[in-house]
Each structure stands twice: as C-alpha cells, then as structure tokens.
C-alpha cells in the first residue's frame, strides 16, 4: 500500500511513502524522477515550499500517478485554449507542424471515417500561408479533401450496427478500442519508444 503524504498539485509533485521509505516523484514520472528523501525534507516541503500535507492511500503506483495527473490537470483547466485559438494555430502552423496534422488526418481520422472532422481541419489548413506556398503540402491537402468528400457526410462508423452484442454488453468504449489498437499498431504494445 502506498501513502501520498504531501503534494504540490499545480506542479504534479508528490511525496510518497512506500514500505517505510519516502520518495519525491514529479512529472514526467519516470524512474529518474523518483528520488528518496527524508522525513525532514518532507517537513521542509510542506513548511517552506508550498506542498500541501495530505494522507491518501493507493493500491498501486498507477493509481497514485493517475491521481496526481488528474489533480494537475484540474489545477490547469483554465489554461486550455478555446476553439478559436485552435483554428488560429492551425491556420498559422509552420510547415513541419502542418505535415504532422496531415499525417494524423491520414492515419487517424480517415480510417475511422471521420470525414467531417477531417474536412474541417483541412479547410482551415487551406488558409495557412505555409500550405499555399508549398506545392507538395497543397497537393496533399487537396488529395485528402477529395477523400473526405468521397467519404460523405456521415462520420459515425457502422461498428455498432455490425456488432450490436458488443455494444450491448460492453458499451461503445469497447468498440472504440479497435481504433486505438489500429493506430498503435500493436495489440500488446511491447518495447520502449525509439
């Protein structure tokens, strides 16, 4: 059993007691970001460095880190950009970012038959000067737009109609699991990122 003894929620830091020893963990929650500390360090964290004392128990590291992440996001909710800002970002993105947007449209939205969503992003990209000045990018955007128009107006994949029993017993999330696995390219992802 793990005990979260103190946390700096806005930074995602936590002081965790595991088997009698204290550890400071911080994002991105890798091995190198888990450091052994003393009881006096914990006292200083609370009294001098703005940590909030707490006493919560968790069955696993995964549950504890999930809790820190959720609190971290809650603290920062006000900073999420609105849709107008996202549109502006798409319309002003540099060439390499545009290319990554196109990759995602190609490998995520179109295979999922999200024609309208893809069409919306592509329309904004057409206003982007980087696209208009780059023949290759412009050709790519045009080709993808053509695919979305051929796809039609209906986004919803017909999986629920084809597998009604799955939706009935396990819910729509189960049907979406297949999309996720197709994108990841592994049913059981093994190995670290290159």
């Amino acid at each position, binding site marked *: 059993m793990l005990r979260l003894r103190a946390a700096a929620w806005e930074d995602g830091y936590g002081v965790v007691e595991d088997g009698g020893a204290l550890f400071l*963990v911080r994002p991105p*929650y*890798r*091995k190198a*970001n*888990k450091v052994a500390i003393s009881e006096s360090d914990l006292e200083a964290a609370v009294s001098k460095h703005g940590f909030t004392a707490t006493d919560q128990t968790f069955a*696993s*590291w*995964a549950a504890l*880190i*999930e809790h820190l992440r959720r609190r971290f996001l809650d603290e920062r909710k006000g900073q999420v950009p609105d849709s107008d800002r996202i549109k502006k970002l798409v319309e002003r993105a540099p060439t390499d970012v545009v290319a990554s947007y196109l990759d995602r449209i190609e490998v995520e939205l*179109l*295979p999922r*038959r999200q024609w309208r969503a893809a069409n919306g992003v592509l329309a904004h990209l057409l206003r982007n000067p980087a696209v208009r000045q780059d023949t290759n990018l412009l050709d790519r955007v045009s080709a993808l737009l053509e695919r979305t128009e051929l796809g039609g107006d209906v986004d919803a*994949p017909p*999986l629920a109609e*084809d*597998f009604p*029993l*799955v939706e*009935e*017993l*396990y819910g729509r*999330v*189960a*049907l979406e*699991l*297949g999309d*996720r*696995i*197709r994108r990841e*390219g*592994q*049913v*059981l*992802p*093994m*190995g*670290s990122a290159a």
Partner: protein
Amino acid sequence: MLLANVAKYLCRFGQKVFALDFDLEAPGLHYKLIPGESPEAVSKLGAVDYIYSFAVEDRPRPESLSEYVVEVERNENVGGLIHLMRAGNVPTAEYWRRLARINWHDVFYSDGARGVPFFLELKAKIEKEFSPDYLLIDSRTGITEIGGVATTILPEVIVCLLLNNRENLDGAREVLRSIRRTRRQRNQPPAIILPVVARLPASEESNEAEVLETVRDFLNEDAPEIEDNLSFSELLVLHTEPRLEVKETLLIDSGTSSDSLLFRDYIHVLAKVVPAQVLMPT
C-alpha cells in the same frame, strides 16, 4: 495442465466452465480435456476456423457457436459443466493452412479493421449462449496478436506462469508491465494479475523462500515509467511433479491427487481466482 485441472475442479464443484484454446501455434487443451477420444471425431471446427471464416472468407458470423464447441464433461449431481472451443482440427494439414492464411495485420491494423470487436463479440456470444461461471482462456507464450487478445482485450484475471530463469523473467516482466500500461492507457478496467512461479523443485535444498523473494524483487524493480511498477506482494508456486514428467495426466483424474504437492498448488491458485464459497459450499 493448470487450466485443464482448474476446469475439471470447478466442474466438480458445480461450476459451468467454458475453456477456449487460443494457443493456436501449439494447441493441446483438447488432449487434456478429451483424453481417449479422437479429437477429430469430437469436433471438426474450432477457434481457427471461426477466425478464418471471418478474416479470410469474409463470411457472416454464425448466430450460434454450437458448431465450434463441444461439451466435454457434465456432472449431473452438482450441475457442473465444461464446454471447450478447441483451436481446431489440429492433426490435419487444413488446420495449419488456415492458420497460416489469417493475416493478423489485416485483422487488427488495416483501415476499417474489425478484429477487436470480432473477438469481443466472440466473448459476448459465449456469455449469452453458454452462460459460463468461468471462461478460461489458454494463451500462447510469447508476443503474438492472439496472445495480446487473450491478455489485454478479453480477461479480467490473468494467471501468468513464470520460470525462474533470466530469459523468461525478463520477458514476462515486460509483458506484465505492458498489460498494466495498455489497459490503463486504453481506459480499460485494470486486470488482476497472478504471477505463478512454475516448475519449482520441492526439495529442501531448493531454498524456495529465497528463490521467490529474488523473483518477486526482480519483478517489482522500478520500471522506466513509475506507473508501470508491478509491486506484487506474493508469488504463487507450481512445484515439479516427477511422475508427470514420465507420463502427463490430469492430477484430478489420477486418483492420487490428495498426496500431490502440485495438486495442492493448483488449489492455491484456484483459491485466488474463485470465491471461497465455491470451493467450500455451505
């Protein structure tokens, strides 16, 4: 052997069991659950045929699984029952041709791939048609697509058999971390994982407690991502049984199970998976 013994034991305690052989490259569950019967006489079709019909022939999926499933044991006194969906008609060349023709990339990763809902539907059909108390899935050792289905998509409890050597433990630890991480990232409920050290000698010289502590410490070492740390508090054990090395038989059918350490190990594993009232009915 563990799965077959557990299936038989549950049946004797009045449970309805459905056993599914997903060890497609080395199938053998039918040899344990249908001893003495010619497997091809019992059923012509199995899991490979069911997948092949969908993935290669693109045929409509059958309403009923009855063609693919055989009843292998019924205990009328207590209501226990075992159904088996074996891998297929293994001795035939057609089985291996069909297995080789299944393109797992198309099934899971191509545009519009429907492999995941297909396997979830298989589980749903088993639940609807056979209403088992327990669905036991025999999965392949190693990293395969069908192994991924058996460990990340379908199960609620995973019994992971380990061998005390570095090659096996290294691989198993990575798989177990990956299962935890994968289910978390895909918003699936976490699965219960039971690590079991298998083929441990029962002699006093084997320093069993020390071996188990070493293995557990190795499994629990910090992962690169802290969230992936395993933190197992206990490892289960399956001891070696010399007579099974001479002739493999189901201990529960042998008539000598009461003096078998391995049989007691099976019961310990079982007790971790099923509620106590199943094993000790009031």
